[in-house]
């Protein structure tokens, strides 16, 4: 009996490998399993090699897992192209297309050699039962269901719905192909390679979505009424979701001519009094610096989502990385403090995006949400979210007394000045990107400038107390600490939990508020530590460096930082922690320096 199952599959374009993964996770969600599905494609726009990996579990999970327990190769060439994305280990069961003509002992995977290699006549069964090779992926589903005890009925009914529009013959053919897979599995038991997932704790169906759609949904929930943006991988689905939904809630969406115009329209909509948002990826973020600076000095709320991909420049548009942190925090000239938040799972995208709107509205500031390709495009099952417990904050409007006369940028005790909107009588004022006095009149006076800089930055002070924006796990007196963010936080927390189970006292910290750096929270975390490790998908160790900027590190603090594309696995992180703890003779990673 195992607690979870990690399956990786690859095939050529048209093999429908990703579609099989989608069917599997949908069935799993209906059955009440926890599951995460990630996909990966070759460089062809369409029809190139494709792959997916699916982790299924009876218990909640936070990452897509590490080494595959089951690998499915429809052909070897394509499978091998995915390299480290589909890691095969010594315990992996490899199922492959018999027609590749490779004997089980000869398969091109031997470092390490997998536990079991099982050829199956996938193409032949598809052709024989459904009359088309297109049904190969359905045969695979049958095989997986049969061999690993996966939700047979749910898969079957899901496929029926999927093929509903295609006519009875197609539907029946698929049914037969699925059954053929099931039967083949029954007739060829795996023996020592056998794995069976336990039934889920509760058979209650789960929600199923990815980080981008979740982000769009959160915006709607938060009360967003305006989206302005420009398509860019891997963020476009946020715009696409809102393009379908925002109108239903009285909003409007603008596909702008570029990222500057998209954010410009958001600034305008915010000035007009609406909650407003944009979404982009690295190259778009790099274009938005100036407009973000305007929103900061004009004190206009807005949310800007950046779905990180591999950089610099166009970089690796379809791969995940965590290298936009410095750009998110610092990409505007002048003394600007702009809050940056990051979710750690697909489910987490919801409350974090809602909180981004709250912080934006409360403090009249642009807020960046740093998602990443992994979170944005992976599918995840999600337990019901009790939305009634989430707050929705509205910006502070001028009371009658504030309008007599109205002083837009009044320096108040908390630094927040009530904000009017066009259409509000008596609230007329000049908003501007030029430095201004409390009335909004342009000023080049040094004293006015100092006061205004101070006000704009002081108003964010309450963020320093937001422990609720950090997840802290593990024994609070543990001497070993690990820190990770975004999609790295999941494997990091799982690694810590696994090590705790092994008896190692490790605690994990996952910041959702990345900037401003909440010094107090880090200081409390560091209090008991003897050693710390910051883990992130960035060559330059951007979070590690950002923390150092503001927090005095009271203990040796190491950095496990590397370029993106392949996510961290819990195993990899656990290995590094073990070596830090002196449990492993392998060299402790040293803190990287950009220029050495």
């Amino acid at each position, binding site marked *: 009996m195992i607690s979870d199952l990690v399956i990786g599959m690859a095939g050529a374009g048209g093999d429908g490998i990703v579609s099989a993964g989608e069917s599997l996770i*949908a069935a799993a*969600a*209906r059955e009440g399993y926890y599951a995460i599905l990630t996909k990966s494609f070759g460089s062809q726009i369409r029809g190139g090699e494709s792959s997916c990996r699916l982790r299924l579990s009876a218990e909640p999970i936070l990452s897509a897992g590490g080494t595959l327990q089951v690998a499915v190769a429809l052909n070897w060439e394509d499978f091998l192209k995915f390299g480290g994305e589909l890691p095969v280990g010594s315990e992996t069961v490899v199922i492959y297309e018999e027609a590749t003509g490779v004997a089980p002992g000869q398969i091109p995977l031997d470092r390490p050699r997998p536990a079991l290699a099982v050829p199956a006549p996938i193409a032949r069964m598809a052709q024989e039962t459904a009359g088309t090779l297109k049904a190969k992926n359905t045969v695979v589903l049958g095989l997986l269901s049969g061999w690993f005890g996966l939700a047979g009925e749910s898969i079957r009914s899901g496929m029926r719905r999927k093929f509903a529009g295609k006519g009875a013959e197609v539907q029946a053919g698929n049914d037969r192909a699925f059954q053929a897979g099931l039967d083949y599995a029954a007739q060829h038991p795996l023996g020592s390679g056998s794995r069976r997932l336990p039934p889920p704790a509760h058979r209650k*169906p*789960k*929600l*199923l*979505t990815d980080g981008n*759609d*979740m982000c769009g*949904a959160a915006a*709607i*929930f938060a009360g967003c*009424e*305006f989206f*302005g943006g420009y398509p860019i991988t891997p963020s476009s689905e946020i715009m696409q979701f809102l393009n379908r*939904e925002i*109108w*239903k*809630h009285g909003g*409007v969406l*603008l596909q*702008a*001519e*570029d990222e500057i*115009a*998209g954010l*410009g*329209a*958001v*600034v*305008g*909509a*915010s*000035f*007009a009094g*609406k909650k*407003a948002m944009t979404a982009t990826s690295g190259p778009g973020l790099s274009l938005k610096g100036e*407009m973000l600076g305007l929103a900061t000095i*004009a004190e206009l709320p807005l949310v800007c989502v950046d779905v990180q991909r591999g950089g610099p420049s166009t970089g690796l548009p379809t791969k995940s990385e965590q290298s936009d942190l410095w750009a998110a925090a610092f990409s505007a000239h002048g003394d600007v403090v702009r809050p940056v938040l990051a979710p750690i799972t697909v489910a987490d995208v*919801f409350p974090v995006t809602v909180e981004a709107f709250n912080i934006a509205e409360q403090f009249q500031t642009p807020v960046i949400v740093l998602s990443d390709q992994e979170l944005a495009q992976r599918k995840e099952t*999600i337990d*019901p*979210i009790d*939305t009634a417990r989430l707050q929705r904050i509205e910006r502070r409007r001028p009371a009658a007394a504030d309008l007599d006369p109205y002083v837009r940028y009044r320096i108040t005790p908390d630094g927040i000045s009530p904000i009017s*909107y*066009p*259409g*509000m*009588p*008596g609230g*007329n*004022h*000049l*908003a*501007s*990107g*030029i430095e201004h006095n409390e009335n909004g*009149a*342009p000023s080049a006076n040094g004293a006015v400038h100092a006061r205004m800089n101070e006000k704009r930055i002081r108003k964010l002070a309450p963020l320093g107390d937001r422990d609720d924006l950090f997840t802290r796990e593990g024994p609070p007196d543990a001497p070993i600490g690990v820190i990770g963010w975004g999609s790295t936080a999941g494997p990091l927390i799982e690694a810590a939990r696994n090590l705790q189970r092994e008896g190692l006292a490790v605690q994990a910290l996952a910041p959702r508020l990345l900037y401003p750096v909440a010094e107090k929270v880090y200081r409390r975390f560091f209090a008991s530590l003897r050693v710390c490790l910051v883990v992130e998908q960035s060559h330059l160790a951007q979070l590690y460096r950002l923390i150092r900027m503001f927090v005095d590190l009271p203990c040796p603090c190491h950095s496990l930082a590397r370029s993106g594309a392949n996510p961290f696995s819990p195993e990899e992180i656990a290995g590094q922690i073990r070596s830090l703890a002196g449990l492993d003779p392998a060299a402790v990673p040293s803190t990287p320096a950009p220029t050495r």
Partner: protein
Amino acid sequence: MTASTPVPAGSQPFTTKDYRSNLKPIWCAGCGDFGVATALYRALAAVGRPPHEIALVSGIGCSSRIPGYTNCYGFNSIHGRALPIAQGIKLANPDLLVLVAGGDGDGFSIGGNHVAHAIRRNVDLTYICMDNQIYGLTKGQLSPTSPRGLKTVSSSYGSFEEPVNPLLYCLAYGAGFVAQGAPADMDGLTALIEAGIRYPGFAFINVQSPCVTYGEEKFQLKAQKLRLEKLEALGHDPADFMKATERARAYGEKLYTGIYYRCPSPAATFESMARERRQELQSRAASRSSILDLFQTA
């Protein structure tokens, strides 16, 4: 009352001083922008929307200081980005009257692309380009509308570039209303701004607004008065696109004022189509709080 439902001419609940702020302009004595501001106050009084229902957006430049000199909601934004911001305002609240003003550099150098896209979206904005053929605020560099060969601090030996033709560009972009005015003819300019505001769609008004400090002699008010030819007097038919195009090509040589083109059957605006879409879809919608239902699998 919405901007696309203009106040009937004649009923004027406000006077020009209701639209003027008490901030002292930083403009040089004699700058054409004073005339543009005056014409704007007058046109706004004629249209009669209360100042708090008006948003005036600009970029950066001498001319872009104008929102601070009005009593409307003003937004003196960043260089070249007035139009995207204005579109955001108008789409977020179509009931507002939204105006955009700024310089030739702001509009046709750094901001050039936004003009094309605002126009093809047909958002109901009135865009006043205060064209002085120079960069005033940054002290006299070449502007996109500077005549070829002009010597400035950034083109000591004369420029190589053909000037931008704002009128021809906006016609090609499909603007429903394209006009040109000049402070030398204040009444004409006032009437053009009013007509632009009343036009139900994107309206472009190029104003020849002389820079007394860095501008060439031939663009000053005095020369302007001599050169100015009214399109109306030439018997120009504002419904004739091809004729408008032909006349627009003379930008830089001739100084025509008046309406080059006014589309006889104005197209639907972006915001009116958006309104319809919302009405259609809102009925089908669940509440914001149940948005997660979309992700149910059962």
